[in-house]
């Protein structure tokens, strides 16, 4: 029940900020055109609904494909690491090195390789969530308690049975955590990838800045935030629904 109270406080805090903001704008109207009133931002979202939606569609597609591809590859790598420990020792450093290359350095490179379009941002999105997934999935696949594994051994279970009945459920909390982190990361990655392009939320943010379209900029920011948040909350709800049995889902974050 403490959670419900926390929720209430969150809503109060955010509502208070929005209200104060609106009031401040009304009082000092037009003095700070750079920061429009919340009502003006809301109006802008409706006014620019079409261009925002068109660009958002693109970003969503890139984010989703990136998230799926990055996660699948991450899990695959984790499965490799767990099945073949030698692979982990040799590949781990390589993975870390590749991960160290900042996305901001990779994005222009991808742009050069694949040109403007959907490919580069998708790859950036995939890279953004690949590493967290690989790390979490490795931890998750190893998370099965040794007692549970001993039990399966005593029951003479096949490796596949052990995987499905013990390792996989034990790793689910970690996988969902990685997806929780990966969803906003994928959106961020796609946005970064679009920065230098000609379409997508990233492009919209950049162009509205250089064209000094303040309200469009704010509207796009709000939408981008909403999308990232929605992705995060989607997986949080997955956690609650499917993993109600884990302490992580029950306790406060």
């Amino acid at each position, binding site marked *: 029940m403490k959670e419900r109270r926390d929720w209430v*406080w*969150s809503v109060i*805090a955010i509502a208070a900020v929005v209200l104060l903001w609106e009031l401040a704008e009304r009082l000092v109207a037009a003095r700070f055109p*750079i920061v429009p009133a919340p009502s003006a931002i809301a109006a802008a979202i409706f006014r620019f609904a079409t261009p925002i939606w068109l660009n958002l569609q693109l970003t969503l597609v890139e984010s989703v494909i990136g998230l799926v591809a990055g996660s699948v590859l991450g899990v695959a790598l984790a499965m490799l690491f767990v099945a073949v420990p030698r692979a982990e020792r040799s590949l781990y450093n390589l993975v870390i090195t590749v991960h160290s290359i*900042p996305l901001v*350095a990779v994005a222009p490179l991808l742009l050069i390789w694949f040109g403007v379009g959907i490919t580069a941002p998708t790859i950036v999105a995939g890279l953004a969530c690949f590493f967290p997934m690989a790390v979490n999935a490795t931890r998750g696949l190893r998370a099965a308690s040794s007692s549970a594994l001993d039990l399966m051994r005593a029951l003479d279970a096949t490796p596949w049975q052990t995987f499905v009945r013990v390792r996989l459920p034990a790793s689910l909390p970690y996988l969902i955590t990685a997806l929780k982190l990966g969803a906003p990361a994928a959106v961020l990655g796609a946005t*970064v990838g679009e920065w230098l392009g000609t379409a997508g939320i990233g492009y919209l943010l*950049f162009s509205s800045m250089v064209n000094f379209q303040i309200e469009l900029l704010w509207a796009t920011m709000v939408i*981008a*935030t909403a999308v990232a948040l929605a992705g995060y909350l989607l997986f949080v709800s997955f956690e609650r629904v499917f993993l109600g049995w884990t302490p992580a889902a029950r306790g406060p974050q």
Partner: protein
Amino acid sequence: MSVARVLAGTLREAGAVLGLLVLWQLVTMLLAVPVFLLPQPIVIAQAFASNVDPIARALLLTAAEAVLGFIGGNVLGLLLAFVFVRSSLMARLGLPLAIGLRSVPLIALTPLLTIIFGFGLTTIVLMAILISFFPALVAGITGLRAPTPEALALMRALDAPESLVYRRLRIPAALPYIFAAFKISAPASVLAAMVAEWTAANSGLGYLILDAGGRYRFPLMWAAIVAATALAVLAFVVAAAAERRVIRWPVETA
């Protein structure tokens, strides 16, 4: 770990890296890979050599931006963490706002910050501050609240004043969390600075990478990428080394 083993491990890794470089060189040479796709390591090294000055200047600038942002963000975050732990009211109001701020993808804030604070250092440092702020806040709160009920009961039984409880118990207990956050926000500050340079500067490593690519000077671009990676890795290594020096006791990994 004995010195010999560490040395052997490092040599093995260096050998692997060298092997990779040699492979890279051979493949690009033999298959005549076009330079916009993948330049030869030797060509990249040449670009490095003939552009040491601009690369170094860009690197130092980005590093300075990142350091300023890192310090600012952590100071702010840790201060706020202290406030939130002392006053649950502030926490209940402030945390949702902090989380809300954190939800905005940082790249989406860059245009806004650029418009408000203009082209230049302020915007870039602000971005780095923002990226370091939230990890510090979370680490500070978790860490300051980390002591077990028994530890707190002990302090109470000793009738220890609040300041001593903080100095001797809460703050040391928080240090592992804080340094773990450093290891994340140090390289992240470098990244944030570089991203901000795309829109708010015409200097620095982030900008250099874009600029070199835009002028089709691909070896230079790759050299800048290598420099950027090295900077990010250095940031992490420094944070990790600092952690090892300060945290002299074993910590349970969460």
